[in-house]
Every structure is written in structure tokens, then in C-alpha cells.
């Protein structure tokens, strides 16, 4: 840990601390995990851009069915490559201290597969398919489930969930905070 401490200046560390939900020690810990993904590139340049496959080697992301969406949403270039700052941003949102509304916002982005700022029926279908894994619900059950969801959540009847509707229902779900969390 002493080695990584000299990588960041004091100013950088305190900037990171103010702009994320981490303490300084946690930031250094996150950097250590980032470094283990590809030690050579990070040695050369601490702001190295690691491509998506390297990032997905992280055990916490490997088994996650939404890992490609997560890397896309948090990558500043939009193509899944992440620098350390993107990685830190991601871990900060998934940490314990991030407030609920930040998590809800990012969850909305992750589940919005076609990035049209609403979660439409197609997005829901994709989410459910990814959640069931190798097994798949048949079409009739899928339709029923999607209808149920829209019935519960869609307030203005446009067959899709806008952010306001999504936030409205997800804030009422007490398990959201516990499940939408990655600890390093």
C-alpha cells in the first residue's frame, strides 16, 4: 500500500475523496484492485485505459449478468474501456455510502439497454432474460410479467418506464440498497 500512496498527490487524493463516497484509504484500496487487473499498463501510466475484457476479469463483475452494461455506462468513452477514474466512479456508486438517488440513477441507465432514456418493454424483456440465465420463461409468461410490471409502475400509460416512474417504484423497494452494492 505504501507504493500506491506515492502514485497520487495529496491534492488528487483529496479531490477524489470529495468527489466520491470514499475515504482516502478506500481510494487506495480501489487503486490496488485496479492495478491487479493489468499490472503492466497501470505501472506505466496510472490513467491507463483498460479495455472491457480486462475489466471484466474482476471477480465481482465476472458472474454479473449485467456486466457489459455496467462497463458501458461507467466508461467515459462509451465503449466499455475504463480508466482508473471511471473505475473509481463505478466503485463509488456501488459502495455503501452512495445515496439512494445516485444508485437509482445509475441503475436506470444500466437497465436501459437501448439508451433511449426510458425502459421500454424490450428493455424489460432483456433484463428478465438475463436474470433467468440458462433457463428462459416462455413467451406467455414473459408477456404477463411485463404487463404486471407496467401495471404497477407505469403511471402515465405510455408502455414504458421513464426515470421518474422507475425512481418512484424503486425507492419503495427496501431490498434495492442491499442488492445494488459491490464491496471491494
Amino acid at each position, binding site marked *: 500500500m505504501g507504493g500506491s500512496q506515492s502514485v497520487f498527490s495529496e491534492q488528487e487524493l483529496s479531490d477524489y475523496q470529495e468527489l466520491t463516497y470514499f475515504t482516502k484509504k478506500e481510494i487506495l484500496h480501489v487503486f490496488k484492485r485496479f492495478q491487479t487487473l493489468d499490472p503492466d499498463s497501470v505501472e506505466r501510466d496510472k490513467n491507463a485505459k483498460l479495455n472491457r475484457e480486462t475489466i471484466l476479469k474482476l*471477480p465481482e463483475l465476472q458472474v454479473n449478468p449485467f456486466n457489459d452494461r455496467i462497463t458501458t455506462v461507467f466508461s467515459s468513452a462509451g465503449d466499455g474501456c475504463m480508466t482508473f477514474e471511471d473505475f473509481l466512479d463505478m466503485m463509488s456508486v456501488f459502495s455503501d455510502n452512495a445515496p439512494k438517488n445516485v444508485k437509482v440513477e445509475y441503475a436506470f441507465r444500466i437497465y436501459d439497454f437501448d439508451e433511449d432514456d426510458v425502459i421500454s418493454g*424490450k428493455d424489460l424483456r432483456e433484463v428478465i432474460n438475463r436474470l*433467468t440465465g440458462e433457463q428462459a420463461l416462455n413467451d406467455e409468461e414473459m408477456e404477463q410479467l411485463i404487463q404486471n*410490471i407496467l401495471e404497477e409502475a407505469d403511471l402515465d400509460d405510455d408502455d414504458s418506464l421513464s426515470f421518474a416512474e422507475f425512481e418512484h*417504484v*424503486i425507492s419503495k423497494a427496501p431490498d434495492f440498497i442491499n*442488492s445494488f452494492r459491490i464491496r471491494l
Partner: protein
Amino acid sequence: MAGYGNGYGPSGQGQDIPMQDRSHFNPAYRDDSLQRDRVAVDMEGIRMEERRGSDGSREYCPEGSTRRRWAATAEPRDTADLINALPSRQLEQIASGVAAKESIRRRKSSRRSIHGTLRAARGKDANEVADSFTRNDDYMDELDGEARTTETLRRMVLPMHDKLSIKRTTSETRKQMTLKRGQTHKKIGWWKRTKYSIGISWMHFKHRMAEFAYSLELWRSHMKKIEGHFGTGVTSYFLFLKWLFLLNIPVFTLTLGFVVVPQILYRYNIKVPSGYGFSVNETSVSFTGEELLTGGNWFNNTELYYGFYTDQVIEIPVNSTTSYNMKYAYLFTCGGYYILCLITLAISISQSYKMNYIEGSGTHTFYNVSRVFCGWDYNITDKAAARLKHKSFYNEMKEYLSGSKKKSHKKNMEERCKLLFLRVLTNLLILGSIAGLSYLVFWISGSGTLKGSVYILSDLALSLCVSAIFLVFPPIFSKIAQFEKYEEPKNELYINMIRTMLLKTCVLGILVYFWFTDTAKDKYSCWETAVGSEIYRLVLVDFFFILGATFFLEFLRRICGQYCCNKGNEEQEGQAMGPEFDIGRNTLDLIYSQALCWLGTFYSPLLSLVMMVKLFIIFYVKMVSVLQNCQPSLRPWRAAKSHTIFMGFLFFFFLMAMVAVAVGVIIIEPSKVCGPFRGEEKAYSIVTNLIDSWKGDLKVLHDIINFISSPGSIASILVALCVGTYYMRIVMIGHKEMVTLLRQQLHMEGRDKAYLLRMLQDVSQKKKEKLGPSNVNRLLSPTSNSTLEAGQRTAGRRVFARTAADTVATMAPGNTRMRNLNGVLR
């Protein structure tokens, strides 16, 4: 999957896409977070996707819903412009609304939803955002501005790189503005500067505390391993264990500091009572190993038990005027840690209840949404656990969807009567068995005739019997509950837990009653020590039973499962075979142990230390057992709601323990030959004597206390509390009705918005046809939007709507108004 969002290829021409292709895709709320060029290319990508997609997706939008597809006819670009021009998307308004609430002294994270701020940053680049910050005075304030900026930035959805650059830009601008301001205006007052520096140092202190707490955190790596394999359900048990362990630490330090250490020092200095190994009658008792099990004999004359403590007023040798009154110390320490536990528990349970029940309920339970969107536990890192989680989700959804179809089977009268009769019967059976077991316990503790040849066992008979009852009967109760055919498994779980708790409460109640009545006291000269040692034995035997249950139920079952039963199951190779970890039963065991500890700490001050050691060992044993033997459960465990219920049980047991000890202190007469309260009529009388002694010097205090404790004032306080509770309930009912009304209103507003936007779409469509394709897309571009924007900044929706309606009105009648159009808009 690969088709989504991957249309980031070379920017192409926007093309008119025929309407039916867009029937599934609602560009209504599209904003230009993607660049303008990419909009068209995405449409291509999605069109391609649709050709590949299944036919089922196109039937998704039913025919009769054309009113919902209001934007399907329009170019997405215009729609995006329209949406972006809405007041709710303007950064300045939202930012100023947030800034007013933030200041360096009130930086607790506001639970208010400020998603407007987060969302408004989409699609704008860093410079625009920085500009909007600099335009706002609150963010440019000399002292608070930095903090407010970083706080707002932290919550914004922007890449970190952008946030850093915005931060630097704004702080430079702020410095310049401060310099300029310093030359023209007077300086900031002294008071404001002091407040600011206090706020800064408080913030730094909090950061340092957070770092310190991070480095101290107990068992973090172990928790992470368990979380990775099992998810949040099993982890909640271990978190509860950790919480209990941490709760016992202040209790122990208080008793150590105020009661045990003075006693040791006193005995060391004055040698009264005499050292360990000598009983009250000066006969020597040596330490043999079996005392650890029975907690008697040698331990009777150590600090472990109440009886050993002196009742003297200890003179402190350093300064002869001050003295340490052991009686007050003992009683007030006891009161102190009970109050501490009470406050901690009350805060904890109220927070948990608020988070999980109040915010989580309301008029609707969003079952489907929360199952799907909170369905994946992001903590899981293990492949086998992930596979199980997928299967569990699939099973749950299948079960739910098939169950909702069968819901229409209503029971007729006969079935309902039968079920009612069955339930009454089982409840009677269970209550009867609880009563019978309580009587059994009473008889055993009373008779004491179970003396066998092995000396230890007769002492331990009661504890063994109690623990055996708690091991055997709750599973029997849950088997009985299966006959009652509850509709929801959740209800069955709760009923089982309530019955188990009832059993434990009754047994403990009977024991306490026995100890406090005359039948117990005649046998012993020092009954408090006897009670203390009995509780010690209960705690110890409970510990052994937990270890034994872990061994037998988890380890042996896994061995059996591996070697005996599953030789032919090839498809289950590679999966851990084993039992599931029973979270409910284990947590209830923990709650029972903690209740024993609370009951016994008054009579055995070092019991909290015993409890801490016990919890520590149980953590490691259970962790190893879970990781080696158990497999993750297929059924989902609702950790959040269950946590509230367990806290409720814990609180209930705490209140019972506190009441029991209070009865022992206030009503029961202490024994005459041992303990700090020997010779007093009641242990509580020292408090009354103390208050009476104030009659001379501190008459005011005496009178106040007398007044408060008089029946009249206590009754009036109770009445006031009841009125307050009733008021809260009325307010809650009012709020619920308000929520329903607001939902309806929201529904209507959504349709209003769709209607208005559709009108604007028509207008822009018509104008586009007239202006031709060359001048096609800047109808509502930002440069021509000044009227609209001005309206938004000052007023709200009404001005926007009126302006929009005016625009429509001028458009609608004729087609000769092209030239006037620009005039209107400018």
C-alpha cells in the same frame, strides 16, 4: 444484445423511417444525450435489430393505443429538441434550487429526490455545466461555494474526468470573482469566518473518523467471502451477530470500569473479603476444572458474581475526602447500560422500520418491479452461487406467474370451516405444549431431586433440560404449521417465529418467577449468586448446544448427502451438496442468548465478557461451517423486512429482561449476607434514601423529583403520549389519501403533457413541410428558442404552454405565415 447501443459507427444521414417500424420504439422521451448525428444511426441499428428480433416484439404494442404513440410520426431530433426545451431539463433552475439547501454546516445528505440535477447534466458537456455553475451566486460564494460545488458535483452523473475539470474551472473562476469582489466590497465579517472554520474542522474530523473506522472494521474480509458465496440473506445473520458483539462491548467496559476494577482494587488493598479460594466461612475451596461448567464453588467467591461485591464506601487513599460508594456505583452502572442498550435498540429499530416498512409500502406493493429490478444480488462473486441465483429467480417467477393464474380458486364455506377448525386445534395444541413445558421446567428447578451419581449433571440438569426443549420443540412446531396450509410461505415463517419466541418467553418467565419467589430464597444464603450461576450455566449450555447443532445438522448432513444418497446423480456433480443454512432459527438463537445476557448481567457482572467470547467463537464456527457445508438457498430471503422483525423481537426480549431486573431491584429483598445491597430493605431504597437526603441541601431537586414521580404527573405524561400517537396516526391516514390523489393527478398530467407535445409535433411537422428539407431541423433549436427559454427561466410551465399554444395558433390557419414565423419566435 449486441445490437443495442452499438450503432456508434460512422455518422450517417438521418432517414425517414416508416411508421410501423417505430411502433415498438417510443422516442417520446428521447433526449440528445447521444450526439445529434448518432440519433439517426441508432435508429438504423434498432431497425436492424428489429429485423433480427422475434415476431413477438412487434405485437407488443396493441393496435388501439395510437394515442400513446404521439411522437411516432415525428423526427426524433425535433422531439429531442422539444424535450430539451422543457423547464424541468434546465440546469440553472434545478441547480439554484439545490444550492439553497446546501451549506457547509448542513451537509447531511438530503433524502429529497434531486434527480432533476442529475439528469439535467445529461447531454451537456463539461463546459456548459461549468458555466451554469458560475452563473449561480450560491456556488460562487467565497466561503461555502467550494463545498456546495463539490457536493452537487458528487451527485451528478458525469464522468470523473469531467467532474475534476469542472471543479477546477469553477474554483479558478471563484478565485477571480473573490479578488474582484474584494476590491469593491467590504470584507466578510468575523462571525461568518468563524462559523466557516468550525465547519471545515468538523468536516476534517469526520473524515478522519471515517478512515479510522474503516481500518478498524471487524471481520470485513470474512463477510465479503460469505457475501460472495451466499448473497445478502446469510450475510444478514452474520451482520446481526457482529452488531450484537459490538453492542456488548460498551456494556462490558462500563461494568469493568465502574464495578469490577474498583472491587479488585479494594480487595487488593484492604483484603476484605479475603482472596480467591476462600469462601465466606473461611474454608478453602480449590479450583477444579469443573467449575468452568457449573459456574459454582470456586467461582462463587470471585468477581463473577454479585455476591462477592462489597457494600462499603471505599475511601480513596490519595485524597481522603473523596470516596467511592460501591452501592451507588453498582446500581447506577446497571441503570446506565440498560439505558444505553435501550437507546441503541430504539434508534436502530425505528430506522429499520422506517426504511423497510414505511418507505417500502404505501398503498401498493410493487412486487413485480422489485423482484425484477432488485432481483440480482450484485454481491455474489461465486459461479455456483450465481447459477443458483439464476435458478432461484426463475423458480420464483414461474411459481408466482402460475400462482396468479390459480388465484381465482375461492374456498367455499365448508373448506373455510375445516381450515378454521384445524387452525384452532393446532394453536391449542401448541399453547398447551408450551404450558406443559413451562410446568416441567418449574418442577425441575423446584424439586432438585435429579441427583445422579455424576455431580456435575445435577447442577446442569435444569440448563440441559431448557436447551433440549429449545432444540427439539421449534422444529416440531414448524412441522405442525405445515399442516395448517398457509397461503403465503412468508406468513408461515412469521407464525413459526412467533411461536418459538412465545415458547422461550414462557420458559424464561417461569424461571425468573421461580427465582424471585420465596421457594428459591430459602435454600441459599446468597440467592443472587445462585441466580447468577444458574444464568451462567444456561448461557454455557446454550453455547454447547449451538456448537453441537452446527456439527450435527450441517456437517454430518453434508457428509451423509455426499456419500450415502447421491451416488447416482451425475448432473449434480460440481455442485456442493448440503443443507441450507437456516437463517431464521439461527438468528432466534442469537436473540435468546442475548436476552439471557441482559437478564443476568445484574447478578453476574462479568457475564457480558462471557457473552462476547461466546459470540466471537460462534462467528468463526458458523462461518467455517457455512462455507464448507452449506449451499445457497433456492428460496429468496427478504433480508430487509426480516431484519426489522428480528430487531422487534430483540427489543421485546430486552424490555422483558429489563422489567424482570427492575422487579428484582425494586421489589425483592436482597440477601443479608452478601452483595453490595446487603442489609437494605430493597436494592432500590438506596435511591430513595439518596433523594431524601437531598431534602436538606438540595431542596429544589428533591421537590422536582417528588413532583415528577407523583402519580398525577405520570398519568398526565402517559395521556399526552397517547394523544401524540393518535395525532400521528391521523396525519398518516391523511398522507395516504394525499398519495392516492397525487397519483391520479400525475396520471392526468402525463396525458396533458402528451397532448401538448403532440400539438407541437403537428406544428413542427407542418412547418417542415413548408420550409423544405434544406431548412428542416432548426425549428426549435436553441438559437431560435429565446422566447421559450426566457419563459422558462422566469415562470414555469404555464408560460411555456401558453407560448407553445400561441405558436400553434399562429401556425394553424394558414400557410402564408412562414416569414412571420421567425418574427414570432424571436
